[in-house]
């Protein structure tokens, strides 16, 4: 399972990619070749993947499944079950890879790529159009994050395995979720501007497109995770039963039609094939569960420890230029599963 093994090694040694490519088990020959030929790109790919999984853990820290990918309790890794969790992991890693590559490109860290396209094409025609339309508000010009490169390379590399098995429903699901991750990333791009004017003011500005901050993106994806759709396999095609959640509103229930997973409505939705496993089988002993203990600890109960922590408080800004704080003792309650 390439994704998993990839992350295991990447957390162990980060720098030396040529050696790394050979040692990672589970890479397809093409992936190995790409890895070998573009060591510099792979470096950012790995860091993107790692930050994706790190963000995943952060996002899910208050839920039963805390984004662990290797579980001693369940028997198999959660990624092998085609659940909504694995849909999330696929989407966020695909997006993470694109995110990291696109940033690296626009910062000039990768030789093979540079700035991305700014909206409305390029060149003078678009600029004058933009400026005549929105008067003097801003002009599209500058160095956008190269999401196109990120997505292209990411797709070539990440989707490699699943594309070779594109007839299998599981691979179709993975491909779909990867695509959703990338598409959501593109849709979430923001505008960043450089101001020109007297003393840092903004009389004229030139703007370009940047990636959203990755944790913002992750929480957006988390909403998609909660709305993920169950799909079934019909004739090598994934189809959605008219979503079970819509059953409560009477009307849509009558048309129990099947929708193709590749249809327009589904293009931005995560899909999964199987129900989630019981994450309560995981050993949750000593896991910090915060506010959500009944869920996370699966009814095994939890203990509360109280600690006294020193915290800065009553901070005041002293002119000039210092922030003075007192230290307060604060009682902090922490909950841990039994």
């Amino acid at each position, binding site marked *: 399972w390439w994704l998993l093994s990839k992350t295991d090694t990447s957390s162990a040694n980060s720098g030396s990619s040529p050696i790394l490519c050979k040692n990672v088990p589970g890479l397809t020959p093409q992936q190995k070749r790409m890895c070998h030929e573009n060591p510099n790109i792979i470096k950012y790919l790995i860091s993107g993947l790692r930050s994706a999984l790190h963000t995943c853990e952060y996002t899910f820290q208050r839920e039963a499944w805390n984004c662990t990918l290797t579980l001693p309790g369940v028997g198999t890794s959660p990624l092998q079950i085609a659940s909504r969790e694995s849909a999330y992991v696929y989407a966020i890693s695909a997006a993470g890879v694109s995110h990291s590559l696109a940033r690296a490109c626009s*910062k*000039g860290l990768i030789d*093979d790529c*540079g700035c991305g396209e700014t909206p409305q094409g390029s060149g003078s025609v678009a600029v004058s159009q933009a400026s005549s339309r929105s008067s*003097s508000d801003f*002009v599209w010009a500058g*160095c956008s994050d190269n999401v196109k490169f990120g997505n292209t390379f990411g797709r070539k590399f990440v989707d490699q395995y699943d594309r070779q098995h594109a007839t299998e429903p599981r691979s179709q699901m993975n491909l779909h979720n990867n695509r959703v991750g990338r598409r959501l990333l593109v849709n979430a791009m923001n505008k960043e501007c450089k101001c*020109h004017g007297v003393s840092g003011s903004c009389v004229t500005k030139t703007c370009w497109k940047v990636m959203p901050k990755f944790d913002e993106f992750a929480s957006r994806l988390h909403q998609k995770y909660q709305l993920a759709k169950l799909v079934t396999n019909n004739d090598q095609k994934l189809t959605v039963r008219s979503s079970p959640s819509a059953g409560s509103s009477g009307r849509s229930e009558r048309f129990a039609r099947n929708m193709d997973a590749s249809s327009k409505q589904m293009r931005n939705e995560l899909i999964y094939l199987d129900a989630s496993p019981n994450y309560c089988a995981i050993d949750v002993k000593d896991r910090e569960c915060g506010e959500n203990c009944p869920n996370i600890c699966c009814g095994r109960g939890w203990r509360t420890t109280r600690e006294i922590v020193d915290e800065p408080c009553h901070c005041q800004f002293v002119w000039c*230029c210092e922030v003075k704080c007192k230290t307060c003792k604060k009682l902090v309650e922490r909950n841990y599963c039994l």
Partner: protein
Amino acid sequence: MDNGHGYEEFELLEDGSLGECSTQVANATFLTISKLICLVVAFKFIKHIPISTTVRVYVHVFASTFTVMWFSRNHLQSAIIYNMFSLISLALAIKQFSGYIILAGNISLLIALQNFCRHYRSEDYFLSIRGILMIHIMRLTTVAFNLEKANSNKFRFVQFSSYVEYIYFPPFIIFGPYLSFEQFFKMRDKKWTGSENELGFIIQSLLAIFNAITLAIISSCHFEFFEPSSQFMEDALTAMSFRFSHYFVCLSTQAFVLMLGSDVVVANPLNIEFSRSTLQTVSEWNKPFHTFLHENIFKRRLFNSTACNVFFTFAVSSLLHGLDFQMTITLLALGFIAYSETVFRKRLSARYSMCVAAKACPVRSNSLSCKHRHSNKTGRALIINLFFLMLSMYHLVFTGMTFTDDYSAIGYPFDHAWKIWGSHYYSSFMISFLFLALSKII
């Protein structure tokens, strides 16, 4: 599958990104500048037309209002705000209020406007007109000081019209520069100096515009030109991007001034990049601004101690930006850095009799009138001056690196600068404290 074919596909994407970024920025900046050049040419022409003073006043007021509307977002609103500032100030100035009161009044009005914008969640709009209003306020204050000085109770239209012409001069409204009253009228009353001379001015100004656009391109596409290999390099590039954007504005205004036949220097980027001291950096940063603050605030010595006067001058300068926390602490930091360095170097040059003070020894009749034993050219002084040159280059990075692009159009959060300075261990402050301590010891 389609591996081999698709593999080539993304390698094709690389080409032209640098060129693309540069062309886009060049187009965008040229568009802005060309509008302003139109105004410059128009008013160079209007200057020579014999029309009555009344008509001239109307032309200037209408053209200025139009310019403000042309360049700002909420057209009508900006025009009203702009005229409101001048009406209130002119009314007060004619009633013989002092220049300080008018400056203070304008600053309060600016801050009120800022809070008003904040209330309606349009901080970005305030940021977009702040620069225009800043220079406007400076001109109005100059007029007030002049009226105060003239001290004539009789109100004469000719005098008034010249003030209006000074305040409402369209080519200088958007990017400046601020010119003092004398500089402005020297420029206005300049006669045609012959086509050869004029051609020289035009070539100079075209050169300035070319440089300005080049700097704007580097400022916007800096990651395309340089590859940051470390965090420090990235910070240095951010600072550079901010400086170069400033040079873009300064050089283009320099071009306008040249076209209109004046020899006022706005800023010389080389003097800032390789400056002898931080004192030189701050005074060269924007010479007209520096002149305004120096003449009207610093030189009037409201306090007895120089430190207080420096602090007050920089405080006024930061208030002219509205209540902008990041700008305020950056300016005060610059003031502190420049002050401590100047004190230390003055002490150093006196104690060891070397030409190493923050200001170079003045040149008189082609030779340095240096009263020090070790003149500029001796090895010791040279090394020390070189050290301070490097140091002021570092200070430029330190003070400029907080102006990142992510918040530039919406305003910086409160702790933004502190966080970034923290990553450099507040080094410039530490160095400055060290200088202050050392200057007491030696």
